[in-house]
């Protein structure tokens, strides 16, 4: 019994030791004075900054701004992109019209267009949401498009054979068969949404976590910068887990690969 718990503890330490080790090295480096302590504040100071800024609600406010922008753009892209991909997958005309726009546009770094977006939509929330929408649309449409094209024809044939109507085939055959691709597209797009919102906030805004990072780094208070980075990481992780949970309940027949 004790030997077993001991072995479990050992394997747990073996798997997770690197994070405490790194924090220890960080603390020692700061304590030894090798680096400018303003650039690399000690873990304790980062923790204090995190606790006070979360405690007085500042970080929570900025995080809610960032997350709601990211989610708005992401959801908009999902609601537009998935039906669009379906149309591209099922209709030759739509496919021929839009294939070059999505496939040639896919590897183009669209971030360069952001200055234009600020002129069209202004510098605040609308331009961020519109730009996040654009950046998320590409991975969602491209991934879902392959999903819709990859639906096995014999599934559709057998449904037709059983006398299913077009709408029933769409809802009961095509959509479930495409669900895994839809979710893998969404899972690619979600971190993109957060990255894009943070970058655009860093470039120019007065709220949001990206702005928070920029403003505190110009004040040389890097403890707050690290605290904001940690908050962004937690938000990204939470959103990804939420998406996985959704996938788990939506694709109940395919649970083995998370």
């Amino acid at each position: 019994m004790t030997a077993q718990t001991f072995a479990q503890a050992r394997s747990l330490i073996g798997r997770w030791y690197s994070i405490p080790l790194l924090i220890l090295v960080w603390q020692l480096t700061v304590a030894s004075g090798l680096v400018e302590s303003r650039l690399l504040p000690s873990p304790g100071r980062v923790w204090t900054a995190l606790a006070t800024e979360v405690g007085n609600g500042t970080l929570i406010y900025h995080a809610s701004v960032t997350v709601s922008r990211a989610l708005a753009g992401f959801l908009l892209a999902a609601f537009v992109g998935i039906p669009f991909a379906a149309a591209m997958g099922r209709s030759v005309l739509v496919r021929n019209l839009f294939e070059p726009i999505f496939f040639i546009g896919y590897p183009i770094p669209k971030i360069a267009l952001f200055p234009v977006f600020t002129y069209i939509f202004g510098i605040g929330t609308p331009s961020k949401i519109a730009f996040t929408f654009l950046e998320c649309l590409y991975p969602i449409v491209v991934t879902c498009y392959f999903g819709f094209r990859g639906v096995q024809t014999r599934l559709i044939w057998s449904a037709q054979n059983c006398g299913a109507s077009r709408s029933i085939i769409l809802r009961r055959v095509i959509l479930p068969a495409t669900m895994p691709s839809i979710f893998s597209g969404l899972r690619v797009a979600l971190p993109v949404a957060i990255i894009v919102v943070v970058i655009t906030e860093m470039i120019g805004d007065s709220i949001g976590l990206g702005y928070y990072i920029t403003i505190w780094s110009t004040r040389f208070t890097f403890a707050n910068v690290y605290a904001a980075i940690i908050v962004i990481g937690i938000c990204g992780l939470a959103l990804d887990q939420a998406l996985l949970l959704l996938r788990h309940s939506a694709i109940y027949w395919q649970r083995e690969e998370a």
Partner: protein
Amino acid sequence: MRINSASIQNWILPVAALAAWEILGRAGLLPRYLSTPSAILAALWEIALTGELFVALAASLYRVSVGFALGTAAGIVVGLGAGILPGVRHFFDPLVSFLYSIPKVTFLPIFLLLFGLGHASKIAIIAFSGFFPVFVASRHAVLSVDKLLLWAARNMGAPSWTIFFRVVIPAAAPQLFGGIRIGLAHAFVVLFAAELIGSKVGLGTIISYGEEWVRFDLMFAGIVCFAVFGFLSDRMLLAIRSRLLKGQMIGTEEEIVR
């Protein structure tokens, strides 16, 4: 005939959009910040003649290529190591899973302060953000190599170096390139943010210069260059991959995307 009409349909939307943009712009119906395509071409020609374009292009090219090469090399070496050796894996897994969900661009202010406004800070942040997708892909690729292949090679008496170079690397290569491609996309996003936020030369700087001096044609010229640059880099990577992975790409999504 069939192929012909499809390729005509491919061109309809892009050509129509460009023509509408030009005509509406000439008629004065578009806001001033949307320079017409012909004005953008003229601005491109202008900065090409003064040589400004090539200086900026050289700076951006240097930053992306060095940063991307460093990040990719580190990602491959450490990722393969983590896939093969459990010790390396247990050290890096917690760190990477913690840092992975954080947009690497948030470290930009810290890198700018550490390495200055020159090339070094951009190279460092591009390498840093390129490391993670490559690491994750190569670690995962090694772990998912078919065990039967390994057993077969071992059974025939292959030494472990031969197994590594002749079995593990070829089997892992397709996934590895997937990670490298994501890393390249990240490199351009980070490059843009870094050049816009803190830089004296580069394609991103042309864009922000155009914004500041209300030379919208110049801004668009920078955007076009940046987009073409990113697009061509991706195509080059795909060409290298199809060279190296002859026969492994038949029927994959990427083969169609081209």
